[in-house]
């Protein structure tokens, strides 16, 4: 982000020709427009979440969070993220290894396929599993006969979450590993390390910050996903409601404090994610540079 070249723009003094930057008043106007826009569209929504959550005092807030349904929603969200994030980490590392370390036919096509879930509506991501596992679905009869419950249960929620968070880790690691090249790995191999040792002691330390960055974004989306999970969950209170779904239910029941209390936890998660992400970019900006842009 703040690479040294940008710093060289910094002295916008009279020494610079006025024609290569806007006049002072123009700068002030542009900045004012940008700040008002960001204030209205980003800051106010964030403030109102905490304002509404605490509208009836801290007592009502903690009480809303202590409710059994709220607690079970929190537990389910943590469980779903704890399953789906590691799955996508394993896939992300594996896909990045295959794509970044080797040259093979159809590589560009495979990379495009990995990004596919980003261009599909979350509702459609949920729908595809309903079509597969639902009562009228392709596998519906068989699942029913064998007593396997996927839809309206945890497995369905996990699957939908894995679908929507599929590309996050892979798309951080692929450009990073491509940029780093194969030199380190080839050196390790020539010194007698086996494949696993090369991965553990050479590749993984090289990409750990990029991996963490991807995990962070993947986790934020996994815990916050609404559309896809909403389609497959069945909205069974206390059983298949994740935090975002519980927010919806409370909000539709006009329980504003309850809805915003649970929402405030998700907003805090978002803030923590942003802070960690910014710290990573500041510390390891150069390393992560290749992966920026999402």
């Amino acid at each position, binding site marked *: 982000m703040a690479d040294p070249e*940008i710093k060289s723009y*910094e002295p916008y003094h009279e020494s610079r020709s006025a024609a*290569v*930057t806007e006049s002072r008043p123009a*700068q002030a106007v*542009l*900045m004012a427009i940008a700040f008002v*826009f960001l204030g209205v*569209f*980003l800051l*106010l*929504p*964030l403030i*109102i*979440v905490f304002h509404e959550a605490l509208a009836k005092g801290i007592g009502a807030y903690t009480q809303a969070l202590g409710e059994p349904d709220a607690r079970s929603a929190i537990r389910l969200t943590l469980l779903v993220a704890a399953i789906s994030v590691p799955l996508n980490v394993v*896939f992300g590392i*594996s*896909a990045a*290894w*295959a794509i970044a*370390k*080797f*040259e093979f036919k159809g590589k560009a096509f495979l990379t495009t*396929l990995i990004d*596919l879930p980003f*261009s*599909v*509506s*979350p*509702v*459609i991501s949920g*729908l595809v599993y*309903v*079509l*597969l596992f639902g009562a*009228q679905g*392709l596998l519906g009869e068989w699942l029913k006969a064998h007593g396997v419950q996927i839809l309206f249960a945890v497995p369905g929620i996990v699957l939908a979450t*894995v679908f929507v968070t*599929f590309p996050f880790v892979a798309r951080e690691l692929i450009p990073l590993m491509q940029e780093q090249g194969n030199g380190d790995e080839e050196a390790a191999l020539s010194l007698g390390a*086996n*494949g696993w040792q*090369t991965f553990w002691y050479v590749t993984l330390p090289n990409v750990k910050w990029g991996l963490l960055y991807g995990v962070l974004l993947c986790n934020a989306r996994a815990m*916050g996903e*609404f*559309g896809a999970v*909403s*389609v497959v969950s069945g909205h069974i209170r206390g059983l298949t409601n994740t935090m*975002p*779904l519980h*927010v919806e239910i409370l*909000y539709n029941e006009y329980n504003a404090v309850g*809805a915003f209390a649970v*929402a405030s936890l*998700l*907003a805090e998660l*978002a803030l923590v994610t942003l802070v960690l*992400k*910014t710290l990573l970019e*500041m510390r390891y900006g150069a390393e992560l540079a290749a992966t920026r*842009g999402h």
Partner: protein
Amino acid sequence: MTTAPAQAGWRFRQPSVIPGFGLTLGFSLAYLTLIILIPLSGLIWRSASLGWADFWAIAGDRRTINALEISFGTAFLAAAVNVVFGTLVAWVLVRYRFPGRRIVDAMVDLPFALPTAVAGIALTTLYAPNGWIGKLLMPLGIKVAYTPLGIVVALVFIGLPFVVRTVQPIMEEIDKEVEEAAATLGASRFQIITRVLFPGLAPAIITGFSLAFARGVGEYGSVIFIAGNLPYKSEIAPLLIVIRLEEYNYPAATAIAAIMLALSFVMLLVVNLVQTWSRKRYG
């Protein structure tokens, strides 16, 4: 692929001393197929087995057409708003120095990190007739919440980082000397921005627009709270899919989803063509 792998001209992969190709590619393909490709082809297979008559009956339904129009129309408007303000925000972040710049820069990613349902109820509360912003707009006769305008507001929120984050890195790379050269040749600041800077940024702006647009078309969580969800008026296509599913009308849900996928695909194709054209045009 008629040749044997051993033959010289064609090779599936370049030789390499690094191990693990078969394992990692095999696992990645298997996982991709199971999680993404089989479920998605299930959708295509289902909609293909509908038959043309049924398919057109659903596609030609007034409610479906209106929902698609609303989804694509509001997403287009929101992406256009984001192109203007997102480019401006990127410019301010790249070119100007002010205290707290890094915090503002980090804030831009908020829509990526904040769950859509949270954004939805927050925006609805702000823009409701008695909300902080709604109250101010009421006397002006502007209603945002529970109207299509509310959908646009939600999609502006969702799409903003897509434009800023695609345009920003390209702006950072702009060579200041080009601007100086233009200035010494007598160009005004306005001419430099429209004739020198904009052409270089155009492909990135188009990409940002298409990403924000694509995301907006499919967006569900943030929209359903603020939209009011009146059939024919403020009902988005993803919501109509959910409604049809809840009615156990699988064919209708499938057909609408297939139309959305097809339209998005055509959109991406058009954007790619425009981009190729703009790269050629502006070099």
